[in-house]
């Protein structure tokens, strides 16, 4: 089977596939209760656009924050370009895997 990514790449050469996962430690979920979502994002976009989309679909208030990580430790800054991060950190199946997290709680 040809990879999913290849078929995307043919159809939408200016976009890259992102697989977003919300960390288990966070209570944040998408409205359907899921922790994963796939996105096709324009290479020339900056991540702040992506942050906005996420904040909206997760219905976050201003006083909440979300953090996106690649490679388990690298923080994605809003001003980074999607294409740049993608070419640096894409995984072998063609997806850019991003983990979403918020602040931890302490007791």
């Amino acid at each position, binding site marked *: 089977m040809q990879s999913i990514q290849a078929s995307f790449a043919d159809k939408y050469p200016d976009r890259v*596939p992102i697989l977003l996962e919300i960390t288990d430690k966070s209570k944040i979920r998408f409205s359907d209760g*899921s922790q994963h979502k796939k996105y096709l994002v324009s290479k020339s976009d900056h991540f702040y656009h992506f942050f906005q*989309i996420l904040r909206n679909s997760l219905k976050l208030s201003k*006083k909440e924050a979300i*953090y996106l990580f690649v490679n388990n430790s690298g923080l994605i800054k809003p*001003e980074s370009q999607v294409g740049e991060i993608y070419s640096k950190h894409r995984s072998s199946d063609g997806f850019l895997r991003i983990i979403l997290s918020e*602040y*931890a*709680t*302490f007791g």
Partner: protein
Amino acid sequence: MDQRQENYREVIIDWIYNLKYILNAYLNNKNVPSGHPIYILGHRIDIDNNDIDDRINKIKQLVQDTIWITYRRNFPPLYQSNYISDTGWGCMLRVGQMAMAQMLKKHLKNHGDKRDEDYDNILLAFADNDSQEYKEFIEFSNKNDKSKVHNFICPFSIQKIAYLAKKEFNLDPGEWYKPNYILFLLEELHNTIPIRASENLKLCVFNDSCLFLDQLMNRMFEIKFETDKDLEEQLEKTQLKSKNSLAIFVLTRIGLDEPNQKYLKVLDELMELPYFQGIVGGTPKRAFYILGRINDHYIYLDPHYVQEAENKDQIIENKMFNRTSYSCKYIHLLNQKHVDTSMGLSFYIRNKSELLQFWRDMKQIKQKSEDFFVFLSDFTPEYVDYSNQLEESNNKLNDDDVVFLQ
């Protein structure tokens, strides 16, 4: 809810926490690394390598001089609950209080025109039994007309924080706090009912690991700055004047499950700045107020120790007899690789020239390292205002499909 005493179960849990605390302190005290300067709350201390006692005593003195706030028991029941103690859940709240107390201390000490009693009043502001003041506060905060000045002695009491936490974040007593929650609550309390002489201390809490000069200047000078002007130049050359000082908190995450080694290096440098006033952070699940560092170890104050709640009269009385429950005699150390990745960094900026120097220092650290994890910008980018746009595209999202971003 009427005042009650702790039951046996609660008393035993308190014992367990205190035993753990003392064991921890004992084990910790032994290994103060040698041969490195100490950076603590904006001071740098160089010490004689050969004299280990001298080294330990110097750190002890600084730690003891910092306000230590811990779990307390037998305070008046918190808003709409049966909680009379915060054992087991209030540590982040306590750490936030410590950071706020330190800011007030720094602020009131630095201003020549402040009176001694203002400084003494800091502890009262955090009294865990606020002598029913929270009832007045609830009434006050539900009133539309806030113009009538109310004098609150204990604006940061746990009763007021718990009430606001419910109102702002729907957080009940007993639930664990995130660092952003307690910092925003303290900001709101300080903005509405500051203690005397602290009105010109302006709190700036930055969420999302960012820092914007225009917002800092807006807070300091209380005017808007044009977006086509060079802000640094205005700070340096113009006649801008202000009596305000800034307490800056930058919330951030320096890794996912574990701290990113490269970000820890940047953090090391931030902790060396003369403006550094500690970190609202901790190890996973346990919040600590991190004061500074020696090499790769952090010095911190630990709130996980249960003491009896005091009201303002008891605090004053204790002071008269030279005893206090707000000072810690143990040095706690933690290896930086065990630090929790969620944290709030804090900086105190006294005046305009310090603000300029702080900004230049931050930019310099950023230039040196591509791993600088705080987003710095002279002007707040438009996209930081999350309130507008994108409603439409949001409605088109289909959760099962791949989402196209337009």
